[in-house]
């Protein structure tokens, strides 16, 4: 049974649906990457999973139950975490307070998880007393991921984690995502850097107009001449 399975999900913000039947299935060992042109419904898919917009059709199964239209404070304890694309840190809170907020739904001792996050991002340990707003873009992205990992999710969703980062940081963030995956966290992310992201994706989904156009492993999609021509810029 997949970790998460979207079956023909339809949804939007009230008016005409933006998602017109999206199918996605991810295992715990997977790094799933959603690519596609602007307005294809990539970010919308993640938001639909996380209950941030109305799902009007289809099912979203996570851990054996349909979680469509559940709100984040119910989803986070179930093992789902989300890193939004923009404004994804609490700028006036310290790095450590940001991480604590990620553990808000936990009532157990989370100091071990915090150590785990600090081991993964050593630079955050150094800056743990600093307001997150004072960090660089790449470090903020680490805070955002760290915050999302504090609930010990089984599935981490990231909305364009490489957006606005310099090429050096893009590679670093992708490597970090792979490392998180190796620690036993399933990944589902949306990426603008399609070719780079698909290169390490075990599952790739090409969306267009709110529907799956192509599905396969990352390398398969890169090798597919039609995908390359229409979606990866030749």
């Amino acid at each position, binding site marked *: 049974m997949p970790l998460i399975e979207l079956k023909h999900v339809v949804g939007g913000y009230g008016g005409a649906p933006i998602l017109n039947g999206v199918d996605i299935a991810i295992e715990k060992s997977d790094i799933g990457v959603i690519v596609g042109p602007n307005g294809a419904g990539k970010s919308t898919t993640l938001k639909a999973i996380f209950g941030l917009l109305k799902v009007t059709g289809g099912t979203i199964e996570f851990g054996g139950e349909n979680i469509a239209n559940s709100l984040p404070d119910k*989803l986070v304890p179930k093992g789902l975490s989300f890193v*939004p694309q923009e*404004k994804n*840190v609490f700028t*006036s*809170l310290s790095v450590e307070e940001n991480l604590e*907020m990620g553990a*808000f739904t936990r009532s157990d001792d989370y100091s071990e998880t915090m150590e785990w996050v600090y081991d993964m991002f050593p630079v955050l340990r150094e800056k743990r007393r600093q307001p997150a707003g004072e960090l660089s873009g790449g470090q903020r992205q680490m805070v955002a991921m760290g915050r999302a990992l504090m609930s010990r999710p089984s599935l981490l969703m990231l909305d364009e984690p490489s957006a606005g980062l310099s090429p050096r940081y893009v590679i670093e963030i992708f490597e970090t995502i792979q490392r998180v995956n190796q620690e036993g966290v399933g990944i589902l992310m949306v990426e603008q850097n399609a070719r780079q992201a698909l290169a390490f994706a075990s599952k790739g989904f090409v969306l267009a107009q709110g529907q799956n156009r192509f599905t396969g492993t990352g390398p398969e999609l890169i090798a597919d001449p039609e995908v390359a021509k229409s979606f990866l810029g030749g």
Partner: protein
Amino acid sequence: MDELIFFINRVLISGTVLGSIYALGAIGITLIFGILRFAHFAHGDMMTMGAFIAFVLATALAAMGIILPLPMAFVVLPVAMVLTAILALGIDKGFYAPLRARGAKPVTLLIASIGVTLMIQGLIRLIFGSGTKSIYVAGESKDIFRFDMSWAGGSRPINITEPQLIMFVLTALIVVALHLFLTRSRLGKAMRAMADNADLAQVSGINTALVVRVTWVIAGSLACVAGTMLALDVALMPDLAFNIVLPIFAAAIVGGLGHAYGAIVGGFLIAFAETLAVFNWTAVLRPLNAVLPEGMALPANLALVPTEYKLTVAFVILVITLLVRPTGIFKGAST
């Protein structure tokens, strides 16, 4: 020396009393703005409501023949704070929460809070009449502590009343408690997180409904303290705190909306500015008359602003702040 003592009595002590009241009111306004993104215009009346609740409890206690060495209003304050907090939660549930659920704009909520203002004032007038009452229910007299200053060459003492002294201590305790809550407790941090970025707070799984309730509990109970202090300082009447809701808003904005420490600083800043502006400087500068040339004397009243225009001081500061530093002293929310 006597001039300095006069200055301490008239400016330092009354300024601190007024500052405490403004600060406690402004904390509520700034927290509500930070979490719920609307200007809670009815906050002054929440303060009045708190003062009347303290008044009723104190009267009841006095009627039972209980006499205590403290003003009764202070004794019943913890209970009054709890009751005001519960009423604040009820007002939110009854009036603001349904509007939020429909995605109402901040302006709609502001208008609703003006409605709540009228309602609270109307209810108070209906129950208690529109006259002025004393919150010193058992005919308690204000004990005055006189600090003899003859050792420093002063012929007059520094006067602090017992209620004033308790107010200073209470305000200091509340500020420290609030600071510890916001920086040490999980819920306090969640409150700052939600004021910083409400969407991300929701995405993190923070129970935002709980944070909203905690906000009303803090805002309501502090409003009760501020209202009761104001009633102890002035007198109890239905439009008690409605009259000062504008300087309180100015304090919150000057401090930086959404910023609790800013509200405290803003409260004291506005209060001292008002007190200094209406202070008659002649009283302090009188010794200068001796050195002034023959035929010249200081005018009898050298106040910058006549007392009846005290309110304008808050607005002048507000306008200057908005022109020079629109986000307030501490960087507050700009929306």
